[in-house]
C-alpha cells in the first residue's frame, strides 16, 4: 500500500492545511495533484520536501517547450540502434580484412532491443512502487503535451516502444504525482478534470513570517518583521515582476552578514534591492514610489 497518511509539512516546509488536504486526497484517490499559483509559493517544493521528509524516491520531469510524452515515458533510440547496426557491419568488414581495431557499441547489443529504450521519469517512477513523480511547470509545454500526458497517466501501464516490455503498477503502489503550473497557458479542461486541483494563493505576512522562520531559525525578529513589511510594500506596487518568496529569502540571506542595527538600517535604505527587483523599469518605479515611504517608521502596510 502506498504511503497515504496526511503529511503536514516538515521543519523545512510549511504546508498549509488546505494544501495538505488536497495532497492527501490526491494520494488516497490515486489522482495527480495539480498545483497552480504565483511563482515563489512553494509549488515545486511540496513534492521535493515530501519525498525528502518521508524518505521516498523522487522522479522529476522538468517540462520545457520541447517536451514530449516520449521523453516522459520512454522512447526508442532509433538513431543509436541504426548506428550500432552500422558499426556491426563495419566491424565485420574489418574482421574480414584482418584488422583488430573495432568500433565500440558501448556495451549495447542490437539483439537486445531493450538496450535502446530510454526510460523517462514516468517509467522509472512506475517501476518503483510508492515513489513521488513531479512534473514541473507543465504550462511551459507545447499544447498537445498535457493531453498526451493525460492518456499516459490514466492507464497504470506503459508499454515500452519496440521492445514491448510492460511496466505496470497496481493502484496501491501508484506513485504520488504532483504537477505544477504557473498559469502561463491554460490547460485543457479534460486534463484538469482528471486532477485534484489546488491553487496556492500568495501567503499573508503572518504565514510569510513562519516561512522565513523555517529557513532562518536564528534570524532576529525585528529584522524579519522589517524585511517582510518592505517586501509586501514592494508587492503592492504592481511591479512587472513582483518579488516572490525566493527573492525575500535571498535578500535576508544577504542581510545576515551584518549586525542587527546595521541590517535594519540597510533594509530601510533598500540595500541590495537587486536581490528583490529584477528589471530596470521596476527599479525606477520603486525608487520613485518607495524610497521616501520606507524611511518613515510604520509606513509599511499589509499587502
Amino acid at each position, binding site marked *: 500500500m502506498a504511503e497515504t497518511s496526511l503529511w503536514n509539512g516538515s521543519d523545512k516546509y510549511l504546508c498549509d*492545511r488546505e494544501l495538505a488536504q488536497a495532497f492527501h*486526497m490526491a494520494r488516497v484517490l490515486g489522482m495527480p495533484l495539480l498545483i497552480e499559483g504565483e511563482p515563489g509559493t512553494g509549488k515545486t517544493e511540496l513534492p521535493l520536501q515530501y519525498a525528502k521528509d518521508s524518505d521516498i524516491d523522487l522522479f522529476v520531469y522538468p517540462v520545457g517547450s520541447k517536451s514530449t510524452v516520449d521523453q516522459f515515458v520512454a522512447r526508442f533510440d532509433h538513431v543509436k540502434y541504426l548506428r550500432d547496426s*552500422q558499426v556491426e*557491419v563495419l566491424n565485420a568488414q574489418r574482421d574480414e580484412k584482418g584488422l583488430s581495431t573495432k568500433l565500440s557499441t558501448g556495451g549495447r547489443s542490437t539483439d537486445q532491443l531493450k538496450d535502446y529504450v530510454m526510460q523517462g521519469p514516468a517509467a522509472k517512477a512506475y517501476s518503483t512502487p510508492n515513489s513521488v513523480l513531479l512534473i514541473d511547470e507543465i504550462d511551459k509545454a507545447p499544447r498537445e503535451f498535457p493531453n498526451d500526458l493525460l492518456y499516459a497517466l490514466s492507464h497504470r501501464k506503459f508499454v515500452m516502444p519496440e521492445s514491448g516490455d510492460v511496466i505496470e503498477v497496481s493502484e496501491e503502489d501508484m506513485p504520488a504525482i504532483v504537477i505544477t503550473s504557473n498559469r*502561463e497557458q491554460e490547460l485543457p479542461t479534460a486534463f484538469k*478534470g482528471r486532477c485534484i486541483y489546488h491553487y496556492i494563493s500568495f501567503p499573508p505576512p503572518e504565514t510569510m513570517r513562519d516561512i522565513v522562520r523555517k529557513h532562518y531559525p536564528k534570524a532576529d525578529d525585528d529584522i524579519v518583521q522589517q524585511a517582510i513589511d518592505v517586501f509586501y510594500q514592494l508587492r503592492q506596487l504592481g511591479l512587472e515582476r513582483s518579488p516572490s518568496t525566493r527573492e525575500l529569502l535571498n535578500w535576508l540571506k544577504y542581510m545576515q552578514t551584518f549586525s542587527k542595527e546595521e541590517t535594519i538600517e540597510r533594509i530601510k535604505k533598500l540595500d541590495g534591492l537587486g536581490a528583490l527587483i529584477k528589471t530596470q523599469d521596476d527599479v525606477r518605479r520603486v525608487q520613485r514610489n518607495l524610497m521616501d515611504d520606507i524611511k518613515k517608521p510604520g509606513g509599511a502596510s499589509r499587502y
Partner: protein
Amino acid sequence: MFESFPEVCRSYGVKADVRSLLLLQKAIDRNLIHTVGDIYSFFKGSLVKDPTDIGPYTQAFYEYFVGVDVGAGERLNDAIARADTFKDWLEDFVQADDRRRDMELDDLINQFLDEVHTTTYDIKRVLDGEDILKEDDPDMKDDDGGNRADGANAERLLEKAADYRFVDLEELRKRMEKVMEQQTRDHQGGSHWVGTGGVSPYGNGGAAMGGIRVGGTGGGRMAREVMGDPQYYPVDIDAQINDDNIDATLATLKGVIEETNQRYLDIPLTVKEGVAQGGLFLPVELDKTEDKLQVILLIDNGGYSMDYYIRAVQALFKKMKTRYQHDLETYYFHNTIYKYVYEDERRTRKVPIERILSKDPNYRIFVIGDAAMAPYELHEGSIIAWGRISEKFKKSVWLNPVSEKHWHITWTTTMLRKIFKMYTMTPRGIEQAILGMNRKKR
C-alpha cells in the same frame, strides 16, 4: 446522494456532473470524508479547476449544504447573517448559555461555520470522549472494521446527537442522514475509526488512520475569506478586451505560437557525412524548430469608436511580443482598404498592399475593425483587395469590437463576413479565432 448538487454547481458556472458524485463515492469508500468540511474540501479539489472557480463554487456549496444563499457581490458574512439556518442555530446556541448573547456577530458566524464544517455524519464525534470509550470496544482491530456499528445503533446515535445540537439544521441533517446510511451500509470500517478519529481514545490520530479531519476550524473561515475577494471572481471573458482581462486574452493568444518538439532525420547531411566516412551512414538527427510566429495586424483607426480598442489591441500584442519573440507588423487603414495601407497611425506613410501580399503565406493576419462604413466605401475594388488578402493568407481573421448581435444590421459587415471569418474582440472571441486558425492547414 447529493444528486442535485452538480446541477446547483452548474447554475453557478462550475462544471460538475455525475462523475463528480462517483468520485465522491470513491472518496467515501477510501475513508476520506467525515465532516461537512471534508465534503467542502473534496469538491473544491475535484470541481474547482481555476482560482476564479473558488468563489462560485463556495456559493454553490453554501447554498446546497447550508442553505445560505449568497447574492451577487455579497459577503458570505452578510448572507449567513440573514439565513434561516443561522438564525435557528443562533437561537439554540444562545439559549444554551446566556452569556453568549454578548458575542460579536463575527465571532458567532465563525462559531457557526466551525460547527458546520466539523459536523460529522458519524455523530459519535460530537459526543464526549467518555461516552465513546464506554460504548466502543477498545480491542477492535482496524481491519475487522466497525461491525458493531450496525444500522440501528448508528441510527440511535444520530438521533441522540441531533437532539444534542443539530436539530435546527434540519435541511443539513437530512442530507447528512442520507450519507450516513450510505456509509454504514457500504463501509462498516468507517464509522468506528472515523468516530474515534476526532477524540482519539486510542491515541490514534484521525489523520494517522486515514481520517483526514478536513474542514475543522480552518475550512469555514477560509470559505468566508474567499467570498467577496475579487481575486476569486472570474474575469468576464465575454467582455470586450480591457485592462482587466488582457492577461486572460494573452493566455489564449499563446495558442498562435506553433511549437514542435520533434526531431527529424537530416537525410542530406547523413548522406554527406556517410560519403565522407566511406559509405558508413550514421544518421544525423536534428531538432525541428518551428516556433516562429509571424503576425500582421491590420487596424482600422479611422472610426471614432475605434480609439479605445486600438490601444487595448496594441497593448495586447506588444505584451505578446515581449513574451514570445515573433515578427509583428502593424498597418493602419481607414474603414476599408483599396490599394494602400499605412505604416503609421496618422496614416501618412503609404504601403501598397502588394507588399503585404508578397509576404510568406504563413503570416497570420488579424484585421481589427468595426467593419461598419457607408456602403459606397466598400466598392468592388475594396472587396477585391480584401479577397486577395484572405486568399493568400489562409490564417486570417477579422476581430470586431462591435457586439455580434449588431453585425447583421450593417451591410458592409455582412459583406466582409463573406470574406473573413469574423470573431468578437473578447478573450473568448480571440480564443475561437485562434482555434479556427490553427485548424487550417497552410
